[in-house]
């Protein structure tokens, strides 16, 4: 973290923070072979932890992340993870290939160090 402070008259203050975000946020969507299968939030979190454990072992399974929001109908979830664990979490999501013996895939829709950015993605602008 790098803080450079320009303090003028005491009224105007500007601080630049580099890589200050403690967390990264991911918007993910689970696609299953059998589209009728539904997972509860707890099942989803367990499933992701299994993925982490497979790829990164016990150290990976201990990586803490939060399931901020989960929509059971669309299987879309918002995850929060410490910035240090982003690559680990993301890659283990990528390599998750089966849920209870049926093929599945995690589609990572967006990744950002700011939660606000996930609700303002201009790539979602559809004009037709």
């Amino acid at each position: 973290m790098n803080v450079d402070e320009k303090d003028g008259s005491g009224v105007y203050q500007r601080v630049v923070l580099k890589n200050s975000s403690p967390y990264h946020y991911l918007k993910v969507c689970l696609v299953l072979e059998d589209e009728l299968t539904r997972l509860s939030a707890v099942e989803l979190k367990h499933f992701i932890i299994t993925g982490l454990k497979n790829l990164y072992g016990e150290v990976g399974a201990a990586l803490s992340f939060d399931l901020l929001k989960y929509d059971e109908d669309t299987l879309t979830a918002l995850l929060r993870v410490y910035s240090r664990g982003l690559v680990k979490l993301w890659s283990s999501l990528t390599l998750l290939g089966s849920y209870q013996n049926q093929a599945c895939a995690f589609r990572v829709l967006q990744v950002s160090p700011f939660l606000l950015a996930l609700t303002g993605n201009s790539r979602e602008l559809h004009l037709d």
Partner: protein
Amino acid sequence: MSVFMDLNLTFTEDKSVLQRMIETAAQLGFSTVAINYMFEPKAKKKPQIPAPTPITELMDQLPVVQGRSRPIRVLNRLTLVMSDSFHFRSTAPEYRCFDLLAVQPTTEKLFHAACMVYDIDIICVSVTERLPFFFKRAPVNGAIDRGVVFEVSYSAAIRDSTMRRYTIANAISLIECCKGKSVMVSSAAEKALELRGPYDVTNLSLLFGLSDKDCKEAVSSTCRSVLLHGETRKTASGIIYTVKSCSEASDQQEAPPQSETCEAPPSKKQKSSVTE
């Protein structure tokens, strides 16, 4: 930086599976995909190379790439799994039906030949077994200079834990050797759910030891230079380009050149455009 590509979708007889795969690839944001025909020549017998199914036969209308207004581009590619040097016949006319030509060598000698001699575009690195040989700097650098690209595919890593270890281990040793240059990461998917989005693949390639920048190149710029390299094979080093004027040449598949001139090695010019 160019568009995202996945130059390895495994061909299956089942058309609907293939269509689903192409649709999914377009949805994920890939602008170009190649359908891969695996071919393993059997001993002694003169091998029968499969002919590619024309894209127009496969799909009536190509799906539109996500977030873009253009349709996806679909190419054909042939991969030869080689266990003996006579499996590769440099002048085989069958090769010309394919846009890309890849080789998967299984011995060190063949790997060396593939890097230095064969007129091919891609060298596949085996990801389903422990590498039967170590990568040596000299042939790898030779391949990079010639504009031949190494390919690591990730769908085996999705299927199985042991394969995953081999994929990561083999990819790491390759990338240590070539310093992250001229590596392309593709899926080799057999069904739609084995495909991953371009940003996912970028992140995954970090595990293979690629840097942030090389990761993105592995699914975009490098693939583009492979395409260009494939064109030089068809068009006599990219200098002369011949098309049969009478046949209805689609934009996907050019008619094979008339003369043997296209067997000339890629010219200097191509070399620089690929390695730059």
